[in-house]
């Protein structure tokens, strides 16, 4: 009962503190708001880029072309040899007839050219389509497939894939670094803003100490005040995240430049991001207050 009363009073005092020192509170809140907006943008960017990378990685396929002179048994042997290579995830045989049909359906020019070729003359080759379990090993796997007898050519979009993935991973790293740096900077900025607020209330703190308030008694209302400032500061960033991302998603139809690069669907992504923003705001506010009061307790 006593503890509840103390907690209740601490919250009341914290609310009073926020409103009695409104101009300084507003400074702290704006500071948190601006940083959290940038943090939100970085989180959205970072997760989407991560998502792109995963999509690209899932889609990359090694195509191994098979010599047309091989018999069916020999083609089966190649399958066995591919299956034992490390890091091979899936492999699938596509016959030259399937490929031809596919290509004839998709291109009129091709269709008219192919009409003049008999099945024996068809230059299209049977293929194995191989996926790896980790994109890092794609080059090695491709080289091993190339060594198998009866394989004439191996292709996996080498060069472009690596470049794309290394670019994505760079953006991902930079935006995560930005989030961490921003959080640290805000914590200190807020700590300083709250320090100013608290200096103007030094008298209050010294009186509290004189009448026998323990350090915890003094600190808790200020820490709760920091929590409130953090929560208030995260309101606008959360609104921007939810409405901003949903608008962005629908205006791009959920994809960026090509159907290949898909954006993360807004639900539940924006709500999780909002929770993270609220959490960061609250923690940063509490940490800032805690650090700011500490100085005044060494009386």
């Amino acid at each position, binding site marked *: 009962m*006593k503890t509840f009363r103390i907690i209740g009073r601490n919250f009341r005092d914290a609310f009073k503190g926020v409103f009695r020192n409104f101009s300084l509170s507003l400074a702290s809140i704006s500071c948190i708001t601006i940083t959290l907006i940038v943090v939100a943008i970085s989180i959205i960017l970072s997760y989407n880029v991560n998502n792109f990378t995963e999509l690209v990685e899932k889609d990359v396929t090694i195509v191994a072309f098979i010599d047309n002179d091989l018999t069916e048994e020999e083609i089966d042997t190649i399958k066995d040899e591919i299956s034992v290579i490390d890091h091979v995830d899936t492999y699938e045989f596509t016959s030259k007839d399937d490929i031809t049909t596919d290509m004839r359906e998709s291109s009129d020019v091709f269709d008219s050219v192919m009409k003049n070729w008999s099945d024996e003359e068809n230059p299209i080759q049977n293929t194995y389509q191989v996926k790896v379990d980790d994109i890092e090993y794609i080059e090695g796997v491709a080289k091993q497939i190339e060594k198998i007898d009866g394989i004439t050519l191996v292709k996996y979009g080498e060069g472009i894939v690596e470049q794309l993935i290394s670019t994505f991973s760079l953006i991902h790293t930079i935006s995560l670094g930005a989030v961490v740096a921003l959080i640290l900077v805000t914590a200190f900025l807020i700590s300083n803003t709250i320090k100013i607020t608290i200096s103007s209330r030094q008298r*209050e703190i010294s009186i*509290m*100490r004189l009448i*026998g*308030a*323990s350090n915890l008694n003094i600190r808790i209302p200020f820490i709760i005040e920091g929590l409130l400032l953090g929560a208030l500061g995260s309101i606008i960033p959360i609104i921007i995240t939810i409405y901003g991302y949903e608008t962005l998603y629908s205006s791009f139809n959920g994809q960026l430049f090509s159907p290949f690069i898909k954006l993360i669907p807004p639900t539940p992504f924006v709500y999780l991001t909002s929770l993270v923003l609220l959490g960061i705001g609250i923690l940063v506010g509490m940490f800032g207050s805690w650090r700011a009061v500490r100085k005044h307790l060494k*009386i």
Partner: protein
Amino acid sequence: MDLIRLTNVKKTYNTGVTAIQDLNLSIGKGEFVFIIGSTGCGKSTLIKMLYREEKPTAGQIIVGGIDVGRLRNRKVYKIRRKIGVVFQDFKLLPKSTVYENVAFALEIFGLPKEEIHAKVVKVLELVGLKHKIKSYPAQLSGGEQQRVAIARAIVNGPKLLICDEPTGNLDAKTSMGIMEVLNEINKLGTTIIMVTHDINIVKKMNKRVIVLDSGRVLKDYEEGTYK
């Protein structure tokens, strides 16, 4: 039994100034003691050490069974809860009412609202300010503000009340009013130590008087012997 006992206390500040040296003193429960002396004689340092605003450089200070000199910063509140302190400049919260200023001292201990109200009203009645309960400090005279400060200092029922020149900013008539209040509190059993420059008050009150000089006890007058 002694409430306060100082043994061979010495205090040297970081600046090299020695404010107190070889001080031995004991004050019993329920006493009313004046500490007087010229400026710089160590009066303020002495009482600051009692409520652990300052630490002694050497020697031992026992207040209410607690070795004050050994108290860590984090544990200072333990002694503060047994002591009420009144200052020359009142130290009231300007944005809080008389009631809030006094209740503040009880709220941090998590007392129920009704109990706080009863205690605050009772103590404001004792200092004669029940009718100003909703006023703000700026709306009160100096004497009234000091009464609020005294009310706040004693609302917890401390064993010891330390007054650092409580009448320093007040005229003679108002000062005597404050002294009457302090006398009442003393009669209820609270030990009072008061630092003052006002010799007239000391003479009128006829209490024990300790004269300090250069950080030592120059003279210790028993009750009623100081003229």
